[in-house]
């Protein structure tokens, strides 16, 4: 693992003692392995209109053409054209589509990891409907296979392979939960052999945001439902989904779903986390070949359903609130109304950000960007957009439904010396339950 610099001065990190030739080979093979008709048609469809640039917060704040979303895919589009497209044999014969070089992949690490959150805003801007975010995710598969991911994402990967979680080994999980139970005075079920609902966590909830463990416990206890955490399957965030390690992605997804089925649960409850939703709700069927026999809910979804059905009720706080829409859950996940239902139940007058719902700007931390210190300057610049929009909306409270967004926004505020607090939807509900 060493930090290096390309000939043009671009920083990159590389893992493993593998020859450049092999790295390149692995990248190309892994990238092309899952390519299908839809991705291919989209790879062929770019007309170089440049409209995607105007959707990306990195381009908007930095005004550097290199952050143009479709540009981030260049080496992989080249690989596609040379090896997979309908004219690929022709191109190779006449030497038209150049081979991808290892130098290119090294150059491109920062475009695929530092300046892309896979937020999908560019997908909504592209007139050809190219799902650039999804293609970046697929490109990362190749980068991981080449050992060309940012070091931090590789560290988290190795930790997760060892512990099953980037935060803690399974044997310490119950301890963390019990500590939280004691600290917040809430009964928290852990490792029950049978339960209807398996609750999972994101790493932040085992470190900075342990109150969340108690918050959901409080709500579930109030509802009187059968639920539990489990040391045999607790990690909902999916580093494989983020960094491109497809094997790990499968492993992590199977772990929590298999565990849930094992304990007889009908519902898998995901924490306030973005990528967890994408990995479990939408991509788990890839591994099982069909929808696994379990209902998979995001925390925001669960809260909204519980409030709407009357299973729980909350006290109105009154006041005003703006909501930050986590990309993977709203724009890419379809849960636009649910957090707003909850906010309205809490008596908030919602002051929407200028870009909200499916068109909201990303917090800037998704896709592993917040984990890479190298990307901090970029992330802090991108944060200026969020700050401006929150200030313009002028609401008292600023709420979100994803722990990583919360961390990113908090870090951004700190760097900008801005005193706005970013709050958790789950915490607001737990702290304002009726009958307290």
């Amino acid at each position, binding site marked *: 693992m060493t930090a290096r610099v390309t000939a043009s001065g671009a920083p990159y990190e590389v893992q493993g003692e593998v020859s450049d030739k092999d790295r390149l080979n692995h990248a190309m093979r892994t990238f092309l392995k899952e390519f299908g008709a839809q991705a291919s048609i989209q790879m062929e469809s770019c007309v*170089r209109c440049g409209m995607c640039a105007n959707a990306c917060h990195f381009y908007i704040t930095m005004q550097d053409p290199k952050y143009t979303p479709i540009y981030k895919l260049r080496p992989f589009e080249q690989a596609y054209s040379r090896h997979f*497209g*309908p004219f690929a044999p022709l191109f190779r014969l006449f030497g038209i589509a150049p081979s991808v070089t290892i130098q290119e992949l090294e150059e491109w690490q920062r475009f695929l990891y530092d300046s892309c959150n896979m937020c999908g805003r560019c997908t909504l*801007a592209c007139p050809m409907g190219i799902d650039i975010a*999804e293609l970046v995710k697929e490109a990362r598969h190749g980068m991981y296979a080449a050992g060309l991911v940012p070091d931090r994402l590789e560290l988290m990967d190795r930790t997760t392979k060892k512990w099953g979680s980037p935060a803690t080994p399974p044997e310490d999980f119950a301890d963390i939960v019990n500590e939280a139970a004691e600290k917040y005075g809430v009964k928290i079920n852990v490792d029950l052999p049978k339960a209807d609902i398996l609750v999972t966590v994101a790493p932040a909830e085992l470190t900075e945001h342990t109150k969340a463990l108690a918050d959901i416990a409080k709500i579930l206890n109030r509802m009187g439902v059968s639920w539990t955490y489990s040391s045999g399957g607790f990690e909902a965030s999916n580093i494989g989904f983020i960094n491109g390690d497809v094997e790990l992605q499968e492993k992590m997804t199977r772990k929590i779903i298999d565990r849930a089925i094992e304990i007889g649960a009908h519902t898998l409850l995901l924490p306030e986390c973005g990528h967890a939703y994408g990995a479990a709700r939408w991509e788990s*069927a890839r591994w*099982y070949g069909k929808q696994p026999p379990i209902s998979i809910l995001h925390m925001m979804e669960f809260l909204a359903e519980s409030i709407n059905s009357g299973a729980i009720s909350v006290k109105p706080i009154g006041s005003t609130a703006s909501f930050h829409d986590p990309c993977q859950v709203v724009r890419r996940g379809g849960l636009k109304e649910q957090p707003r239902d909850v906010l309205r139940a809490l008596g908030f007058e919602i002051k929407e950000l200028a870009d909200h719902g499916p068109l909201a700007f990303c917090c800037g931390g998704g896709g592993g960007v917040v984990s890479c210190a190298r990307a901090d300057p970029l992330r802090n610049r991108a944060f200026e957009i969020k700050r401006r929009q929150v200030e313009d909306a002028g609401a008292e409270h600023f709420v979100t439904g994803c722990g990583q967004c919360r961390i990113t926004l908090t870090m951004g505020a700190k760097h900008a010396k801005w005193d706005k607090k970013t709050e958790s939807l789950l915490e607001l509900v737990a702290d304002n339950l009726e009958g307290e």
Partner: protein
Amino acid sequence: MDLLEVARGPALQVSLAIFVFGVTWRLLGLLLLPWRTDHSEPRGTAPSAIVAVLQANLRKMWPHKTFVRATVFQFVNGYVFHVGLAIVVFLFAPHILFIKSLFGVTWPALPSNLVYAVGAITLFSLIAGLLHRLTSPVLQLISRADDYISWLVTLLPVATGLLAIIQVGARYETLLALHILSICLFFIWFPFGKLMHAFTFFLSRGATGVRLKHRGAQI
């Protein structure tokens, strides 16, 4: 054989054959690849794929409000060009005759003078498009030879068509021959460059539309 005979004869035959050959190759080469099915449970009732595809295509015809200001040139000029070209190609009497000779269908034409005006506007929008590509840092980074070639083979029919009707530069039959030859060039290049977006845009938009609709989101 004079130039006009060559243009109307073997040139059209060969170029249209190449067009059909290339488009079939490229389209089938894509459509016969494995289609990825989303086995996850959809949000709500499973939307019919056809409806999702059509909806996506409809929604993509207009940019989201938040993008309009920053992309107003591509948006407006894009439409001026495409609509202008469609009017010229499909609503000009001699062109309708050409299509009739190939497909047997016909429809009423617009007054020719009106089409000339639209043709001129289309020409200007093409030039504006090129100027934009040459002066935008984003486009200068991502553009490739294909963009310029496709631009040229699209410009030539419009330009030679206008030259033919104002009869400037050469005798009419020469201008007409050049116009037809420029169309032949267009057809020959079509399957191999970005002009294929005319065929792929529908499925490209559709694929993302299906994916997002499945999740209860929208394109």
